[in-house]
């Protein structure tokens, strides 16, 4: 029996964690993800979970302790945002390259400077090459659902990679919305017991983790890691299918909203997709064939599937909530355009950097984006493909 509730995104993730009852949770506070360990600490204090909660002295240590716990054979996770994610940049690579299943609940926030506590994706996009699987949420329900699915993906024997589940700071993490929760037992059964193959605390067979590897072996290790990321594609879909059967909520690499017959499409990640859907609803009433591709899985990057979904559009705006300062646009723009190029798509494409440091995105803003796409499709001239939206002056 599903339970209807009203929760913030942080509460939703914390409740999912209570239902999962993980083994080890090291954490360090940082806005706006602080509430996740805070809610969880109250579950620990009241005996609602068995978890060993470690209030460490930094984010570098929270990820390092999660690595130690995972290597030891435990189901481990941590949570962070922004500077915290940047500070744990080094151990992110260690978790992934040591092939350690664990979960990192990211609440997206701008990186300094100027120091800013509001949403953009510069933190997790900065970690896009760390070897973590990345799942993004549009709203609280998706943040909860991604959390429930994360350990299954991470621990799968063909994957064995850490997973980052991301939600938008404040917009999703602090806004209270209606949400449907699974029963505790449903989550417990879905996630299952963690049965590691080799682990430090196996008295019958000691193991060693984190070797020095010279040139003879390093590249093979990296190739194997790349293979695991490839395998993750099938596993993400398998887990989503099973989750869909259980919950009635279906997930894939991305959500297509009126994309099938769309002439003008927006590609984006996160909460602004909700606003864009409202814009599309209005435009559709006016007969404008507008559509949206909302990406859920950024790592592994579903390039072929994205290109296939965009094959009939005339013009596309790829919206990045992070700049990569390449003088070409943001990371999503670069990767989607590359996917389109490999499929020989002829659609015009522009890359728009938006919403940095929590800058608001309105239905009208997105209406202007679609109007611009219509103009580009008509004239066949994309103009500057690296643009900013919502900048004053």
């Amino acid at each position, binding site marked *: 029996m599903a339970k209807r509730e009203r929760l913030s995104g942080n509460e939703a993730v914390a409740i999912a964690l209570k239902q999962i009852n993980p083994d080890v949770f090291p954490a360090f506070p940082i806005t706006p993800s602080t509430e996740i360990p805070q809610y969880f600490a109250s579950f620990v204090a009241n005996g609602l979970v068995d978890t*060993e909660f470690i209030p460490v002295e930094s984010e570098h*240590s929270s990820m390092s*302790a999660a*690595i*130690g716990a995972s*290597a030891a*054979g435990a189901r481990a996770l941590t949570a962070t945002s922004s500077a915290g994610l940047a500070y744990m940049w080094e151990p992110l690579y260690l978790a992934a390259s040591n092939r350690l299943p664990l979960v990192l609940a990211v609440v997206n926030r701008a990186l300094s400077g100027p120091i800013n506590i509001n949403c953009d994706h510069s933190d997790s996009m900065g970690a896009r090459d760390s070897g973590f699987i990345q799942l993004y949420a549009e709203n609280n329900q998706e943040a909860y659902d991604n959390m429930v699915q994360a350990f299954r993906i991470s621990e799968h024997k063909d994957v064995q990679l850490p997973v980052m589940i991301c939600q938008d700071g404040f917009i999703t993490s602090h806004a209270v919305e209606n949400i449907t929760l699974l029963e505790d037992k449903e989550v417990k059964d879905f996630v299952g017991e963690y049965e590691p193959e080799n682990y*430090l605390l196996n008295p019958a067979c*000691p*193991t060693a983790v984190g070797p020095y590897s010279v040139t003879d072996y390093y590249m093979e290790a990296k190739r194997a890691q790349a293979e695991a990321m490839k395998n993750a594609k099938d596993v993400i879909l398998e887990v989503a299918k099973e989750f869909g059967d259980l919950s009635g909520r279906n997930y894939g690499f991305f959500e297509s909203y009126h994309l099938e017959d769309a002439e003008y499409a927006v590609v984006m990640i996160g909460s602004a997709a909700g606003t864009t859907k409202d814009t599309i609803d209005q435009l559709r009433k006016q007969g404008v064939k507008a559509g949206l591709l909302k990406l859920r899985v950024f790592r592994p990057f579903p390039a072929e599937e994205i290109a296939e979904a965009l094959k009939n559009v005339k013009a596309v705006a790829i919206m990045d909530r992070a700049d990569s300062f390449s003088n070409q646009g943001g990371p999503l723009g670069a990767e989607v355009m590359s996917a389109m190029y490999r499929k020989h798509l002829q659609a015009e494409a522009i890359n728009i950097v938006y919403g940095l440091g929590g800058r608001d995105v309105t239905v009208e803003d997105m209406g202007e984006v679609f109007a611009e796409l219509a103009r580009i499709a008509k004239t066949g001239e994309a103009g500057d493909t690296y643009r900013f939206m919502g900048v004053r002056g």
Partner: protein
Amino acid sequence: MTSLKEFMDRPDRLAPGHRMCAGCGATIAARNVLKAVKPEDHVVVTNATGCMEVSTFMYPYTAWQDSYIHNAFENASATTSGVEAAYKLMKKKGKLKEDENFKFITFGGDGGTYDIGFQSLSGAMERNCDYTYVCYDNGAYMNTGIQRSSATPMYADTTTTPVGSKSNGKPQNRKDLTNILVEHDIPYAAQTTFFKNFSDLYKKSEKAIYTKGASFLNIMTPCPRGWRYNTPEIMDICELAVETCYWPMYEVENGVFRLTYEPKKKLPVEEFLVKQGRFKHLFKPENEHLIEEFQMEVDRRWENLLKRCR
């Protein structure tokens, strides 16, 4: 109390065939600290990046008979915190039997302990994580080629404090890390080195490993490459460090200081310095005052320690 013979008869948990330098002090420390673990107990060794890590676990070979994890340079204690938490959970859930006991021992050089690993160390100590941190203090970043650390003694010639026409080596005194750890109010902290028949090292290791909660063991481990002494003379060097009171042998149990060895006649520190190439410049006639300064610092620290022990 385990007898010296029992300690020595225990099989090595760090196997030969690793790639540490001949005569390396760090290896002697690791091998002998691990002799203090009861044969029926298991160990998870955590290792900060450094000489020991790159030389003992070069894929696909490991010299460690127990489970072992190397994570990074600065996070050995945080990593151990995670392992220890996993252990508590598995015990609680009955995933490990009552007689399946693990001990958690972390090895780090002075760079990974006094400097870059200090935050992680301090955090784990304050949380009273049930582990033993063993610092093999050879007084410089030896793995990267003898750069100064905050454990490097004053006037030592290192590659980042080279002796030159305007330099007499490292200008600053060394950090007194053992005392800083004592101030964390942990159940057990001690200093030792390779001295006489090693019984001091064995006893302190056993106490550290079998004290519930956080323990810190600071072991002076000479490095033939960095200190530039005649390699076979390691035991003489250690003895001189102790007899000159450069490296006092003491322990602090629940805040109570105790000298575990007091020299009958304190030797002048130059007897320790003269055997090492890194202090060669101090023995030029014009540098006599530098040895005097060095002696004053040793005396000051020794007197402070005596006050706390009495």
